[in-house]
């Protein structure tokens, strides 16, 4: 069968509508209907492997044909996002099982997937803009179904989404009038000869829109509260899909539409990158370090993940904006890897909330014996987040570090590596406060999450392990995407990377094998010796104090309080505060304007008379009004 791109885009929407209708019959009908329509995109996408299509026209607007297309990069991401949508849907069914919103949530979910495909396939600036705004709108609706504070989160999200939308709209309209066309190719052709200010202004306007969605500092203000308050399945989508859509657009616009050559032509080069890319590298680095440090001192499980997500998108931005084959490969690979491991973390935390009803870390603890599968999934995910071999996060960060070495940027490399160490701190805090430590009495009856709910985390955990040990599998797609963007793809093998300029050879299976060898030796020593005897969790050394089930010494609240002391001087410099000051300023200005517009007719009449008098006087004296 031959599927057109428009069909892939409409499949989930169609499925969602059908499922919505089916919900009148029975919930099971709805669930199965929609599940089928979430699996279909994989088969439909299959025929587009290794194909580049640029001009599938589907609509004519303002005399211009709007077109869809697919290339190696959007193919890779649409496969990945289809998988994450499928898994998030399974999770969503459990999360909303008691809620009355579930039918509507599924409908919105389907439109979201359609819109994401739309952005990935769009080949002109109008289509991408429309689909991008549909995403923002639906995310706005979905957030509202979350936790207590979700309505505040909605407001913050939509404000920022609108800022991004307006800034992109300005660029879209401007470029349409200048270039006379919406198509990516025509825009690119126009920009190559356009005056420098036009290039710079449109670029900055577009990038603001993308980086808001990617929650890069200083445009991240909406992200922590939104990620924390949205329903868990929506948090997964926010972090693993919507954020990556923003970064996908960034990649396409920087390398394919504007192009590095254009930037090199109009601005000086700093550290082998055009000036504006160098600025973006520093923005990425600051996002890494600040995001990581703030994540360390959070007390809410989902807030930690939110800040971690911000920090990780800093790595992606840093890698991409290096603009070298190594850096771009690292950035693209990290898009894939981060979607996978952050997905696991949100799924596990969501499962814990599903069973215990809290996301407050200081109320949790000791769940390892109750939820072992979740523990193992989270263990793999935190190893990946911290960038430790042999999980997938290591390879992509490794590429970014090596790219920084190749560009001879020791300061950025220092920041990136320190961010890696910092991520070790917050992921340990997360797993310790949820699964280790002491089990509170009220959670003694907690069970592992249902088997179907384990599927999303297990599938992604296996992928994280597979992509970590055999980096060649994701690199197959990444190198094709890189070739599409016009780079010399870096050399890779199934097991890692061969020796090449700027990159030391790496072989992850050998690292894993040596690790396993070490484990076997240590385990032999351990298990051949006399057996252990299990004791109760309170059978501990407490310096002579006798503790009971009611009075516990569980170290969980303020885990890194001493670290908080160290960074306290910098808390004054919060970006939120700058925005709050700005809001205060706008309010003050508005207050003065309100004194003129009192809503009182007499005031308006007298104002009119005064202005008329002034104008008449100018005219009488002999001045020219316009």
């Amino acid at each position, binding site marked *: 069968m031959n599927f057109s791109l428009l069909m892939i885009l409409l499949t989930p929407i169609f499925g969602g509508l059908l499922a919505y209708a089916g919900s009148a019959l029975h919930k099971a009908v709805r669930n199965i209907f929609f599940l089928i329509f979430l699996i279909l995109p994989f088969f439909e996408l299959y025929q587009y492997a290794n194909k580049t299509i640029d001009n599938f026209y589907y609509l004519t607007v303002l005399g211009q044909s709007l077109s869809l297309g697919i290339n190696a990069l959007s193919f890779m991401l649409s496969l990945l996002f289809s998988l994450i949508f499928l898994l998030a849907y399974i999770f969503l069914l459990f999360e909303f099982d008691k809620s009355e919103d579930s039918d509507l949530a599924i409908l919105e979910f389907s439109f979201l997937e359609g819109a994401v495909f739309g952005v990935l396939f769009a080949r002109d600036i109008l289509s991408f803009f429309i689909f991008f705004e549909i995403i923002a709108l639906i995310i706005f609706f979905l957030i509202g179904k979350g936790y207590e504070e979700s309505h505040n989160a909605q407001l913050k999200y939509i404000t920022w989404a609108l800022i991004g939308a307006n800034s992109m709209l300005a660029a879209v309209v401007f470029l349409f009038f200048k270039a006379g066309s919406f198509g990516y190719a025509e825009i690119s052709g126009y920009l190559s000869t356009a005056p420098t200010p036009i290039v710079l202004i449109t670029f900055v306007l577009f990038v603001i829109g993308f980086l808001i969605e990617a929650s890069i500092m200083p445009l991240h203000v909406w992200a922590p509260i939104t990620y924390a308050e949205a329903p868990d399945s929506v948090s997964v989508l926010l972090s693993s899909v919507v954020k990556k859509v923003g970064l996908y657009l960034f990649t396409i616009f920087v390398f394919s539409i504007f192009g590095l050559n254009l930037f090199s032509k109009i601005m000086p080069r700093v550290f082998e990158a055009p000036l504006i890319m160098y600025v973006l590298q520093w923005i990425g680095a600051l996002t890494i370090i600040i995001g990581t440090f703030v994540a360390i001192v959070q007390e809410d499980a989902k807030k930690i993940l939110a800040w971690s997500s911000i920090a990780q998108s800093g790595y992606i931005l840093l890698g991409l904006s290096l603009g070298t084959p190594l850096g771009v490969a690292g950035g693209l690979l990290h898009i894939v890897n981060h979607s996978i491991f952050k997905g696991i973390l949100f799924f596990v935390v969501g499962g814990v909330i599903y069973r215990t009803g809290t996301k407050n870390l200081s109320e949790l603890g000791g769940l*390892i*014996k109750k939820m072992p599968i979740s*523990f193992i999934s989270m*263990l793999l995910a935190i*190893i990946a987040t*911290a960038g*430790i*071999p042999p999980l997938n996060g*290591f390879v992509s960060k*490794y590429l970014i*570090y*090596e790219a920084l070495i190749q560009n*001879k940027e*020791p300061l950025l*490399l*220092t920041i990136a*590596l*320190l961010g*890696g*160490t*910092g991520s*070790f*701190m917050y992921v*340990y*805090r997360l*797993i*310790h406060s949820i699964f*280790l*430590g*002491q089990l509170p009495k009220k959670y003694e009856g907690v069970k592992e999450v249902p088997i179907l709910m384990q599927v999303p985390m297990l599938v992604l955990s296996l992928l994280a392990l597979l992509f970590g040990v055999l980096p060649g599998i994701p690199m197959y797609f990444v190198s094709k995407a890189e070739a599409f963007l016009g780079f010399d793809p870096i050399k890779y093998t199934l097991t890692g990377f061969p020796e090449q300029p700027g990159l*030391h050879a*790496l072989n992850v299976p050998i*690292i894993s094998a*040596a*690790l396993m*060898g*070490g*484990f076997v*030796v*240590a*385990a032999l020593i*351990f298990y051949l*010796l*006399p057996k*252990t*005897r*299990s004791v109760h*969790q*309170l*059978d*501990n*050394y407490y*310096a002579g104090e006798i503790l009971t089930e009611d009075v516990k010494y*569980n*170290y969980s609240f303020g*885990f*890194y309080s*001493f*670290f908080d002391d*160290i960074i306290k001087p910098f808390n004054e410099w919060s970006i939120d505060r700058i925005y709050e000051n700005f809001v205060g300023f706008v309010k003050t200005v508005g207050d003065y304007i309100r004194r003129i517009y009192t809503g009182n007719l007499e005031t308006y009449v007298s104002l009119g008379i005064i202005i008329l008098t002034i104008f008449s006087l100018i005219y009488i004296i002999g001045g020219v009004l316009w």
Partner: protein
Amino acid sequence: MVEKLVLILTPIFAFFVGIFLEGFKRKMVARIHRRYGPPLHQPLLDIIKLLSKKENISHGVMFDLGPVIFVGASILTVLFLPLPHFKQLTPYGDLIAFLYIMVIGSLGMALGAGESGNPNASIGIARALTLMLGYELPLIIAGNTLVVRYGTTDLYKFMTLQSGFNWNLFLLPLTAIAGFIATYGAMGEHPFDTVVAPQEVATGPMVEYGGKHLGLLMIGHAIQVYIETAFFTILFLGGASNIFTFILKQLGVIIVMTLFDTVFPRFRIENAVRYFWRWPTLIALLGLLIVYIGGK
């Protein structure tokens, strides 16, 4: 063939060198305190004693696996350090990979200690991770300086490039000093021993461990002593042309460290991190600047 044999024997070699260095250190501390001190092989006797305990207490599977992961990962880390004339596994991973491989052991240890449910252990781990953030900064900058200077990240090449007396200790003294302080912090010696701090958190992560668990932890610790000293030797003391010089240089590192260790009191954890982010970092940055401007 010989290389593979050496590869398999390296962890055992590292273990015994580590035991020797530890024993030497205890003897030296005792002499500075004007005691006679235990025999050189005392750490080995301790391990044998602990491993032969009949009664072992466990708090769960992760608690058991913690020491196993610690030892297993230490063995892995040893394999990625080159020896004189032997590249070991360095063709498959460089300095950056090594930095991350080094962390696996601490992760296992942290997870195991966390499951014990003892707040002292958790506090110890929290301190250990914070301290790590402290000493990693000068260590990273020092490492960067070497990478900028030599244009490679291969540990074996670092060793060969310094042959003769072209030690980085003489060529890049500032970087070497910063690297030394950072390595010293990584070893957790006074005044940076906030992690174990017996009087405050009852040896921190190790508080619930006894018997064969503690025995394994001590095996791992011996290997870690070898790793830290060998790492410093390779990066700054020019590696070595034969195995005896290598051990001799490691011994030199331990002697200097012990001189500091015996006379210092203990930092509070915040102050330790502040210290690392201030003086060693400044020194390291200065070293980096000199290399960056002065020529490759």
